[in-house]
């Protein structure tokens, strides 16, 4: 019940539905569904179709606070031909289609709001077509980023986009995921060269043409990036061709404390302006550092802190670290510590890695929800300062961790789901934060996606004209609105 308060507070008002149209309840079987299930079985076999309650519930939730919305049935296709055949059946029977990768999303993207069919793509788990000299590889949706990097470990190549979780790469493409080293290697938008997509009616397309993988192209509309970030609302991604990078020769990690948020962000801007190809630059505010100190028995000064990582050859690292150290000193930075060997680096970064758990440990028994706004770099000090004032004024626990090189930061809201007042205050806070970011020329979601909870904010962010264009595209590609209904738009 308490969870319901939290969930309802964070969920936006549902659109008005015609009176009497009941939302489909799970385990309700209609004749149409029975016929569809029989057809699914003829395509994927008995093992490829599941009506089991536990399986459906597992496929109706992700890592967000949104409650479980299980589908009516889960199918497990083994190849793109099966995906296409299953989609055709769904199209015929007007059944919603919800693609599912690893269920590690943070915005409720996999909830089956109107029931329907969850397409679990975990059995399509092959790494296809690695081209080492061309720095590209094609993967199926069941391949996660850690699995790919493990596969590549002998080749000297890696796929650097690192959102934290061991997510499906096609899932990452679908949410336009990013990560701590986007400042150097980019997000999914910059690193997907081609996609194989199954549309709502079963049509299979290759967004850049079958098998094509030039490093750049100006051929036609950029369909690939239309699907990147579409969160399963335009089609099912069944193959992704990804851009690879050389594994860095060496890495150096560093930590530095600052007297103020402004000093930390100024240093970040100057490091980027100096042309240092910094790989990771993470900001932790004083509350977060305090939490990390308690959690890991560390003793960092309780003040805004930057965690940095540099990639390159030994010579280049020396130069990068020396320039950065000078900049931080000029901005009042202190306690600059750095390390090259793996064990010490891991120790230095442990604080940043454990940020989520350290936050939870601040208030045992509570849950955590991460906000995700992104603003131009120059506005970052202002938005963080205003956000911290908001947190204090409203008596909320929200330690801050941010990918400061991108202007993206997360408040890890720690709250008691059984306290309706706090739940409401957190909800209102996150809305104010999103609007604060929009007012500063930013976005309401830097990397987690729109999913279920930010659709109204998306409208505010884009304005009515752009929204109309998006809705037009959706209507063209999915006229029956079967692809992940109720998300994004």
């Amino acid at each position, binding site marked *: 019940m308490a969870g319901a308060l939290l969930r309802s507070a964070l969920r936006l008002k549902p659109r008005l539905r015609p009176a009497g149209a009941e939302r489909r309840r799970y385990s309700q079987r209609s004749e149409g569904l029975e016929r569809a299930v029989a057809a699914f079985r003829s395509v994927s076999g008995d093992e490829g179709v599941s009506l089991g309650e536990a399986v459906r519930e597992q496929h109706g939730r992700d890592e967000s606070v949104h409650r479980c919305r299980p589908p009516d049935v889960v199918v497990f296709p083994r190849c793109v031909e099966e995906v296409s055949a299953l989609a055709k059946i769904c199209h015929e029977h007007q059944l919603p289609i919800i693609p599912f990768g690893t269920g590690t999303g943070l915005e409720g993207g996999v909830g089956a709001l109107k029931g329907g069919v969850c397409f679990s793509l975990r059995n399509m788990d092959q790494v296809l077509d690695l081209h080492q000299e061309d720095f590209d590889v094609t993967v199926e949706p069941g391949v996660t980023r850690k*699995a790919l990097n*493990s*596969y590549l*470990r*002998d*080749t*000297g*190549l*890696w796929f650097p986009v690192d959102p934290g979780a061991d997510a499906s790469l096609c899932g990452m493409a679908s949410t336009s995921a990013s990560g701590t080293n986007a400042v150097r290697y980019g997000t999914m938008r910059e690193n997907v060269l081609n996609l194989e997509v199954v549309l709502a009616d079963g049509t299979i397309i290759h967004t850049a043409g079958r098998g094509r993988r030039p490093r750049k192209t100006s051929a036609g509309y950029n369909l690939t990036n239309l699907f990147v970030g579409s969160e399963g609302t335009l089609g099912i991604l069944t193959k992704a061709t990804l851009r690879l990078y*050389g*594994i*860095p*020769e060496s890495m150096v990690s560093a930590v530095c404390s600052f007297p103020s948020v402004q000093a930390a962000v100024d240093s970040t801007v100057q490091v980027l302006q100096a042309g240092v190809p910094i790989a990771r630059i993470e900001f932790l505010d004083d509350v977060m550092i305090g939490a990390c100190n308690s959690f890991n028995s560390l003793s960092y000064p309780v003040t805004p802190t930057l965690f940095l990582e540099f990639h390159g*050859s030994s010579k280049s690292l020396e130069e990068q670290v020396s320039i950065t150290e000078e900049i931080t000193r000029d901005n009042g930075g202190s306690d600059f510590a750095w390390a090259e060997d*793996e064990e010490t680096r891991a120790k230095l970064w442990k604080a940043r890695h454990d940020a989520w758990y350290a936050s939870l440990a601040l208030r045992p028994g509570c849950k955590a929800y991460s906000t995700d706004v992104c603003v131009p770099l120059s506005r970052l000090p202002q938005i963080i300062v205003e956000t911290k004032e908001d947190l204090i004024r409203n008596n909320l626990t929200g330690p801050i961790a941010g990918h400061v090189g991108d202007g993206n930061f997360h408040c890890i809201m720690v709250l008691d789901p059984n306290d309706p007042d706090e739940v409401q205050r957190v909800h209102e806070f996150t809305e104010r934060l999103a609007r604060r970011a929009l007012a500063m020329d930013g976005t309401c979601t830097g990397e987690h996606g729109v999913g279920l909870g930010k659709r109204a904010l998306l409208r505010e962010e884009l304005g009515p004209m752009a929204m109309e264009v998006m809705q037009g595209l959706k209507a063209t590609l999915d006229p029956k609105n079967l692809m992940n209904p109720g998300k994004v738009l």
Partner: protein
Amino acid sequence: MAARVLVGVKRVIDYAVKIRVKPDNTGVVTDGVKHSMNPFCEIAVEEAVRLKEKKLVKEVVAVSCGPQQVQETIRTALAMGADRGIHVEVSGKDYDTLGPLQVSKILAALAKKEEASLVILGKQGTFASEVTIDGDKIKVIREIDGGLETIKINMPAVVTADLRLNTPRYATLPNIMKAKKKKIASVKPGELGVDLTSRLEVLRVEEPAQRQAGVKVETVEDLVGKLKEAGRI
């Protein structure tokens, strides 16, 4: 510091691959399946390279036994920092029946020929979790049931690597390119005086029994009934 280290590297099916038994039950499917260096051999190579970086040994030699493809595995060891490689050519039926006995004879013969002071291998045996060289002796800390045991041994010695010995480095592109220039010598088992005939014959290979689905029962009486049916009580 005349120490030369020999490291055994084995080309095996990649640990992330789902192993399948051949339809005729004579073995596992290897055609078209991804192969890579045995993860424990990676740890062994890493340890050897670290000893060289600490200037405790002079040269690291990577050895592998098998058909032409094992040269890829040797190249990976070279990219991680080994100085040169030795490919012991074993193929066809001989490779299918190559077992620990023959490989140990080969490695022993090579260790003698190359005058190696230390042979580091991926584990099956006593497990080292820390290795240091002290003059002409090796100090090894190994994990045993009760905790850690520190022993000092003379060289030449054989050490096997445990999971916790180190975290192997990745082969980076520049090092992979440099490795292409390092030498891999080929040698036949016969030249080492090793007889490859196997004393073992594989009769049949089967998958482990599939896990059966559980059954839910409503009452204790049902549970007892089912257990009796299954002959368990």
